[in-house]
């Protein structure tokens, strides 16, 4: 399964509750932390995945691919609801990372 995202930058004005503003991060820095420049192979034995930026940096395009397992329906796994369950854990950082 492959998906392409176009991302927009959150800002202190648009997302006042976003915790990293309090630690002094800028929108660009937050973007770089969540969507790093390097290609990333996520070698999770239960669900190998790969993600990375593509296209021009300023377009903020990002691609995520993950394995559809035997017995799963690729078209179901490609829905926003199912794909979000797999991807969003990687876009959720523990607060301890920033202490």
């Amino acid at each position, binding site marked *: 399964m492959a998906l392409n995202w176009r991302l927009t930058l959150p800002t202190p004005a648009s997302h006042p509750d976003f915790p990293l503003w309090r630690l002094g991060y800028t929108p660009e820095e937050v973007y770089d932390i969540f969507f790093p420049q390097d290609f990333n*192979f996520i070698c999770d034995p239960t669900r190998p995945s790969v993600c990375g930026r593509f296209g021009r940096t300023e377009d903020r395009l990002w691609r995520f691919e993950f394995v559809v397992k035997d017995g799963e329906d690729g078209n179901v796994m490609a829905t926003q609801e199912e794909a979000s369950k797999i991807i969003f854990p990687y876009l959720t950082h523990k607060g301890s990372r920033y202490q």
Partner: protein
Amino acid sequence: MWPSDCIEWIRSRPFSFSARSCNKWSLNRTILCGDAAHVFPPFGGQGIASGFRDAISLSWRLKLATDPQNTVIDHEALLQAWYVERKQQLERSLASTVENGNFCNEPSRLKASIRNWYFWIVQLVPSWKHELQLGGRREGMTKYDWEPGLPFLPQFGGGKSFPQVFSAPIDGLAPPIPEFTDDAIFAPHKTTVLQLVALLNSVDDIPTARVELESLSFSADKSVMLDLSEATLIVHNTATLPTSIFSPSQKASASSAESIIRVLDAAEYTAAGLTPAALATRFPRPEPLFYDPDRIRRDLGWDKKYVLVRWDRFVFASCKDVDELREAVAAIDGCF
């Protein structure tokens, strides 16, 4: 968590992949090239690279096939040799891709854990880490194994990839935007399928090389194949030469298509990136990690002086002197 309202879903779709290659990539007036001829799983980043390699190795053959003066050429054999060579490299790219895919997609937790520890340990030793980073490239650049009909001379080291290194004009500074030896060898004004490259130790070797090259004679029908006036002289071990020291006899005449360049070492390459002119270009200039200015001679052999390179950057023949070069030139007709 990254705010979900900062995400626009452009595309989300299942796909499948496989590794396949057609048995014939050309028949009569039809040619299959790139993804039309072969498909890759995505783990090696080899799909697009293979397409480019197919295209450049096809380009000079199409030039030969459509040359109105060349009425004897066997088109089927010409194109078959093309895909026989390409399939050799494809098999190696595929092996490397499957290796990567197996690393990424290991389904056993125990084996995945062993893999992670193995890679962690390997990376503690810098030379091991470099080996790991090279991956499929640790065996060196692609080399075609000779089979009957392939257009290169195995007895003269043909079939190897011709490496490229950073270069500068013989009598000028390193350019603000990096240039490679290939940029001179295959410059836009060069036309022939085979390009002659002379590998020289110093500027003092230039006059001798010129005399030796002029002593070779060609029949006119080789004009699409080889033109010695397009030769490239590459001088190793030379720092910037002030123009005043560089004697007129060592310079190319204005009318000649000849190029004379010098090889840059890592220090000069790096220094050239710090000049105001280079900084103004904002051209990305990666650090020259593991850069070897002697790469061409290391790969081809330190005793090689004259190299005939095909337009697709594979060596037709590398020769230690002008006599060997004469033999190689004489063998061109039988190879294409």
